[in-house]
């Protein structure tokens, strides 16, 4: 109940914000009868309606995970963001091994299998991608091997 009411409220506000930013769309002199604003208005309008219905007729609450699990999910998200930023500067192997090991540990918290999974996936996928599929990946960047 509560989840859906909050969710519906957020949806309504986002949809209103969407409509508000759609009013800022520039129109050109070549405009067709409908113009570039009408469709976003329509979508935003239906969105507001949906949000309102969800607030008024909420579903039962889902089973939200405990704080520890939410923390784990937040950590996973941060690790993935870090992975996105380090993939180019550090090359493929090291960031992939670290990220895969952390994710593996989060699904099944055992240290040694996780580390092995990380290294195995990283090297294995690199070989497949680089040599079987011919993608242009860099194993270690110049910054690491000092080249």
């Amino acid at each position, binding site marked *: 109940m509560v989840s*859906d009411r909050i969710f519906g409220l957020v949806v309504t506000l986002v949809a209103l914000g969407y409509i508000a930013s*759609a009013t800022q769309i520039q*129109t050109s002199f070549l405009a067709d009868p409908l113009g570039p604003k009408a469709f976003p208005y329509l979508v935003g309008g239906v969105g507001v309606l949906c949000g309102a219905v969800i607030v008024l007729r909420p*579903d039962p609450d889902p089973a939200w995970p405990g704080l520890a*699990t939410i923390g784990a999910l937040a950590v996973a998200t941060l690790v993935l963001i870090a992975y996105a*930023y380090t993939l180019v500067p550090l090359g493929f192997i090291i960031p992939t091994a670290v990220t895969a090991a952390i*994710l593996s540990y*989060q699904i099944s918290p055992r240290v040694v299998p996780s580390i092995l999974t990380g290294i195995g996936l990283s090297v294995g*996928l690199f070989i497949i991608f680089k040599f079987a599929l011919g993608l242009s990946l860099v194993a270690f960047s110049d910054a690491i091997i000092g080249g």
Partner: protein
Amino acid sequence: MDLLANLSLGFSIALNPFTLMLAVFGCFIGTIIGALPGLGPSNGVAILIPLAFALNLDAVSALVLMTAVYYGAMYGGRISSILLNIPGDEPAMMTTLDGYPMAKAGRAGDALVLSGVASFVGALLATIGLMLLAPSLARVAFLFGPAENFALYLLAFATLGGLASNNQAKSALAACIGLGIAVVGVDNNSGLPRLTGGNLHLFDGIDFLVAIVGLFAVAEVFMFIESQGKNTSIGVKLERVTVPVKAIVSSGWTMLRASGVGFVAGILPGAGASLGSFLAYMTEKSIAGDKGGFGTGVPKGVAAPEAGNNAAAGGALVPMLTLGVPGSGTTAVLLALLMTLNITPGPTLFTERPEVVWGLIASLLIANFVLLLMNVPMVRIFVYILSVPAWILLPGVMMISFVGIFSLSGSYFDLLLMIAFGVLGYVLRKLSVPTVPIILGILLGKHMEDALRDAMVLSQGDWTYLFSSPIAIGLWSVAAIGFVAPMFLRKVLAKPERVAD
């Protein structure tokens, strides 16, 4: 004989050794994807598309590979349903009802072979149906103008949301999220940016592959982290595999009926394979009556949903190829593949690119026989693969997603966007907001808006033009019924509970 000429064109392409190899490879990968719990057909096809694209395959090869994966996944879904009581993908849910009890009774081998044969019958009949029906539907689709197309897109959203979700507002909202995202980027008509917030990365719009991989694959990994891999229960052992001739023969009519039901369900835009297997199972259950023993592990209860779901998978290709409107989540992903390859599905596809359509159909016919071979005599291999634990599989899925998206554009912005879609997908799934309409919205948004704007140009701004032809009125009515009717039918369509251990 148009059909024969077209088919021979198709087979001349499909029997090319390279294409044939791709089809076999796709079938194998697809069966694995279908069998592994947590990696359904939409996820699997979604993470493979960027890779197929990075390989620089030509349009026909890429399409053959991915549809082979799609068909393979539909076959593979039954393996974990039967052995683990966990559906490998959503449509295989119904197979757990009788498949798992059969496996517990020591007939796992029988159930696997029987369901493999049922999958074959369903998929083969549906491919033949596709071959016969699609060209004539394509001719009808030539009559569609912008007004009809707009109504057709609306119909897809209405039926998809109506049938797939338990809450109309939430499925309509999902469609709005998708359509709202599709608007972002430079407007085709005026050439001016819309809703980009001045961010240069967004001028080209948001790549639907980024959204698909994020909403499906990344969100799935988050779901697994939440459950700590608890969904991987220990299943039934597979002792010996023989061919249960008696069971196959006795469920012959069941397979044929279920294929028919499944195919029709597949054709309905938005309904898809889950509805196909559900309706096929329920039809057979009511034909068999109380004495049929459905739910206790009878062969017919395994044959019906498998024939139904594979027939629906073939049926779902009909609207996707002829109208450009996908009939299920996975065909939505296949539509994304077509768009990436610059192929516009629709009636013109059949006249302008016959080699694509008929090469695909011929490959599907071949793929069916390959899949039958893989899934009956070689089923043991896939049973071994099933034992890959979630803590290796899911990090692997995530890494493949990253490499795939990264190889598309080489920009970290797309990776961040993919993570954001993953988080969004997780929250929406917790709140039981369906994610397939979002994908459909992102894919079809531009076309839908163009159809609306073209209609208004033609009619000089007269709204009644949208309802001016019989076809358009028909589509609007079906859309309205498809959206409203499930609210009243929900009790009738309630899904049976899974068998508890």
